[in-house]
């Protein structure tokens, strides 16, 4: 017997009930981990499995929920010995029956990045170790998961290290989300894509509260659903659970219309519950539930169903953008994050992410960008690169179901990209070009689209997950091209039943008033069936054209979204209009002192007409900042006010920089500084405050982020020839990393003078740090607060 046969042959598959509850009731004693009972009390664990099998369970879960290297660390037992004993115990109990043994795996117990500090690959390794140790099981179960990315690491570890089938269940709270914010739809969509055999829910809620969760899941998957609920809530005094077996079974029955096929119990359930469920299900039929949602992509928290035109933001792309390219070279990830957030605010529902640049390691940057963007932004991403290995690192660490941009009709592309799309369960953009370039006619483009779809389907990719791009050509170069593109788009949409995508702004190159041309083309394409316009969502008229189309096409019922979006825009507008008028009266000094950003920028503009840039900086801006700093030190103003003033100064600097760009004056950066929160430390608001101020005072900050490996600090210093480094540590436990980092800096030849002395100035700060300690670990400066960091930078770099 195997899982597949079981799923085919049986109307319902019965899982077991709680292991922990039985252990608790038995009063069996253990140190630290209940999983050690597999070794110390094998007969007891076997008796629990046996009781569940006798009650009707087709599958029993091994007693290995927390049997990972992290949680077993204090138990003195290895993962290998605990898990193999556990599998043996379940096997012994199942002997002579058809019951299957599932290797049970729960969360690692530490949170993954970005909320926590556990890296994706570290989580993967924990799971891999468990999976290898449990190879004697019949299937693998991941349960009680609250982080979709952790679950993805687990599923990949299973797929890459074992041939066993996989069940995956997550735990949802009463608000319909997991602790980390995962929605049931996102879980169903992502896990189906990753190729698990069944998905569902376990723990936390009782079966009486699960209907909304299950109903949402079933819309986004065709897989059989699993329900392994708690027996309600425990009474805080007696610890007895509130839902008794009969009622539990009744609730389970009410969930059957959603396609539930695998049923068991979690906390508080016992063999009695399983027996009752078996009885209740005996005369019922499973009601398979086909997926009803259209093709969709998601982040962990947000699902975007492509059942109406959806806007893909195009701005995270260095092509033709100097500042963006510089940000990539400097590793200035915050710049990308700013771009991401602004686009979402503008109305983007999906974001394209392209970080290709000849001077950087695109693979590393793609992984970093995907993780960082997902840490602040819920919009699903489109991973964009011409290189399959870059696509793969992005796909691997992506939390949710992304779009791959792109595959094309060329054999090399089909053969390398489509298998990745399948493996990671993504959607993909198919470009209608091949080794012969972009065909002129609609017919030829359609033929390529057909070829791409055929190849995708051969690999088991649903054609609804292939989004065809019929390619926008520049109308000023080839006037007929627009018609060909749209004609191909219509055919793809109608004859292939695929979704369509187009980069819109290409159309208008070389023409005046590009925005108008773009908007007209956008509207034409939408009417011809364009689903995914790739545009700059910060141009309100473009975004609004898509919204208006949704109204006119009857998609946006009662124009509710359109009205809401425009009301929000109207709210924001008056505030902006007011400012220039007020700015006329505000001089640059008081603008900076009072933290009035747009007034400051306007004042700088005015001054530049009569005064020299450096004079403004040295005689106006710096003195204003000095006054703010002085007041901050004297405890006259708050830190947020200091920051607002510094931000205003930054806005002034930006105006001046732009002006110098035009007139070709000297560079205004006062020097480069590396900032990092040390390895192990993830609380980095202090470092970010320092960064903001240094930025605003005219220094170029290379921010390496938090939890930074000492080697990365040194590599960056060497590569970019930077001789000033600021380190921050919040915890006594991470001061050691600070010391290690400084030692590595001092010991690096490339960062030394010919006489062996260090060329690098290190300044440090953080809540637990003292001046004495800072000196002891070899820092040059100890800075009590952000203001002192700026003073230090002035002293060292000028």
């Amino acid at each position: 017997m195997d899982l597949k046969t079981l799923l085919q042959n049986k109307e319902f598959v019965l899982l077991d009930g709680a292991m922990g509850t039985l252990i608790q009731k038995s009063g069996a004693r253990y140190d630290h981990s209940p999983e050690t009972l597999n070794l110390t009390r094998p007969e007891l664990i076997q008796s629990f499995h046996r009781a569940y099998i006798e009650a009707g369970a087709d599958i029993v879960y091994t007693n290995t929920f927390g049997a990972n290297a992290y949680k077993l660390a204090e138990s003195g037992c290895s993962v290998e010995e605990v898990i193999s004993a556990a599998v043996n115990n379940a096997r012994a109990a199942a002997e002579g029956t058809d019951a299957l043994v599932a290797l049970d795996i729960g969360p690692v117990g530490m949170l993954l990045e970005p909320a926590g500090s556990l890296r994706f690959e570290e989580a993967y390794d924990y799971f891999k170790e468990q999976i290898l140790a449990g190879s004697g099981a019949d299937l693998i179960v991941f349960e009680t998961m609250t982080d979709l990315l952790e679950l993805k690491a687990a599923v990949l570890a299973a797929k890459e290290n074992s041939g066993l089938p996989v069940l995956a269940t997550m735990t949802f709270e009463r608000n319909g989300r997991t602790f980390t914010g995962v929605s049931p739809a996102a879980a169903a969509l992502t896990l189906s894509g990753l190729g698990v055999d069944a998905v569902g829910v376990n723990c936390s809620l009782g079966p009486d509260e699960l209907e909304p969760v299950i109903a949402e899941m079933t819309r986004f998957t065709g897989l059989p659903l699993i329900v392994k609920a708690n027996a309600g809530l425990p009474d805080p005094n007696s610890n007895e659970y509130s839902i008794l077996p009969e009622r539990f079974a009744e609730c389970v029955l009410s969930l059957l219309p959603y396609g539930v096929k695998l049923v068991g119990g979690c906390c508080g359930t016992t063999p009695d519950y399983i027996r009752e469920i078996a009885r209740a299900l005996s005369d019922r039929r499973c009601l398979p539930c086909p997926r009803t949602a259209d093709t969709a992509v998601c982040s962990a928290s947000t699902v975007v169903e492509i059942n109406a035109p959806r806007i893909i933001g195009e701005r995270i792309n260095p092509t033709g953008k100097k500042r963006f390219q510089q940000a990539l070279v400097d590793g200035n990830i915050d710049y990308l994050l700013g771009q991401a957030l602004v686009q979402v605010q503008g109305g983007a529902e999906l974001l394209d992410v392209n970080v290709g640049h000849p001077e950087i390691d695109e693979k590393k940057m793609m992984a970093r960008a995907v993780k960082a963007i997902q840490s602040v932004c819920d919009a699903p991403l489109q991973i964009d690169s011409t290189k399959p290995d870059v696509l793969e690192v992005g796909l691997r660490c992506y939390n949710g179901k992304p779009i791959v941009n792109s595959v094309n009709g060329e054999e090399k592309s089909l053969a390398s990209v489509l298998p990745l799309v399948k493996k990671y369960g993504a959607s993909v953009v198919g470009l209608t070009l091949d080794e012969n370039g972009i065909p002129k006619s609609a017919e030829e483009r359609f033929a390529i689209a057909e070829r791409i779809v055929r190849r995708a389907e051969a690999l088991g990719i649903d054609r609804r997950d292939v989004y065809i791009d019929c390619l926008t050509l520049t109308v000023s170069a080839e006037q007929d091209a627009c018609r060909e593109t749209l004609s191909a788009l219509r055919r793809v949409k109608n004859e292939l039943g695929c979704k369509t995508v187009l980069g819109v702004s290409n159309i208008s190159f070389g023409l005046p008033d590009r925005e108008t041309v773009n908007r007209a083309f956008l509207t034409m394409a939408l009417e011809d069936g364009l689903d995914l316009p790739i545009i700059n969502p910060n141009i309100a008229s473009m975004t609004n054209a898509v919204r208006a189309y949704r109204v006119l096409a009857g998609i946006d019922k009662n124009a509710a979204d359109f009205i809401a979006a425009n009301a929000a825009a109207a709210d924001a507008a008056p505030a902006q209009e007011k400012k220039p008028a007020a700015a006329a009266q505000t001089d640059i000094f008081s603008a900076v002192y009072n933290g009035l950003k747009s007034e400051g920028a306007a004042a700088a503009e005015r001054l530049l007409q009569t005064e020299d840039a450096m004079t403004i900086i040295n005689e106006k801006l710096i003195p204003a900042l000095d006054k703010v700093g002085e007041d901050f030190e004297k405890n006259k103003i708050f830190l947020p006010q200091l920051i607002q003033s510094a931000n205003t100064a930054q806005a002034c600097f930006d105006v001046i920089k732009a002006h110098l760009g035009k007139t070709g004056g000297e560079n205004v950066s006062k020097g480069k500084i590396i900032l990092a929160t040390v390895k192990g430390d993830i609380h980095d608001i202090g470092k970010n405050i320092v960064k903001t101020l240094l930025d605003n005072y005219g220094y170029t900050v290379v921010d390496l982020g938090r939890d930074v490996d000492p080697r990365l600090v040194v590599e960056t210093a060497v590569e970019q020839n930077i001789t000033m480094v600021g380190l921050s540590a919040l915890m006594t436990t991470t001061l050691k990393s600070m010391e290690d980092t400084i030692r590595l800096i001092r010991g690096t030849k490339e960062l030394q003078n010919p006489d062996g002395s260090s060329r690098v100035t290190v300044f440090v700060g953080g809540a637990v740090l003292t001046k004495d300690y800072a000196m002891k670990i070899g820092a040059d400066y100890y800075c009590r607060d952000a203001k002192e960091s700026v003073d230090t930078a002035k002293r060292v770099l000028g």
Partner: protein
Amino acid sequence: MITLRRLNRDEAVRYLGGAGIALNEKMNRLLEDCERELLSVIDAKFLYRVIDLPFDAIVKGRDIRGHLGGCDRAAVMCATLGAAADRLLRVSQITDMSRAVVLDSLASAAVEQVCGEADALLAERFPGTFMTFRFSPGYGDYPLDMQRTILRLLDAPRKIGLTLNESLLLTPSKSVTAVIGLSDHPIPRGRRGCAVCSLRETCAYRRKGSHCGFENTASE
């Protein structure tokens, strides 16, 4: 589990280093906006569990022993504002640092309020019982790695999604773990304050002659 309706702004202002600074209109508005935004994402949760003597599982070092002296029971507790609050703090650090600083201070005040609610519930459950103040890992010589024990005793990762990383930082970050002594007899009520604080040498509040809100170390 609990809903905070207002946040303790005075406390947040103190965290901002503002004892004695006049709030101008702009700062007031900023505080107000940030409070509204934070309240909309806070998902406050706490857990506690009462354990009887002996306290071997949770005692490590001199200070916690002293803290629980004379108590016949102890409550271990944890509280968190949840993952969404952390996320708001992260996002604000990219979009507007001055806002981030205010949000961070308000969040610190908020988690303290959640702990206060937990205290109240405990007092309600054990009427007539005398309680010590909350003693957290990191105070005095009570080691940070006791957070691991406390979270395990409370099954906190599973029940409220509160976990610890390898550097002993709690995630979500705006969270607390603590031990409270319970006794049927009056106990000398020491208070949380600079005397047991491991940050006393570097504290920015002390430097300015102020305190973070728990300055009073005298017994009542």
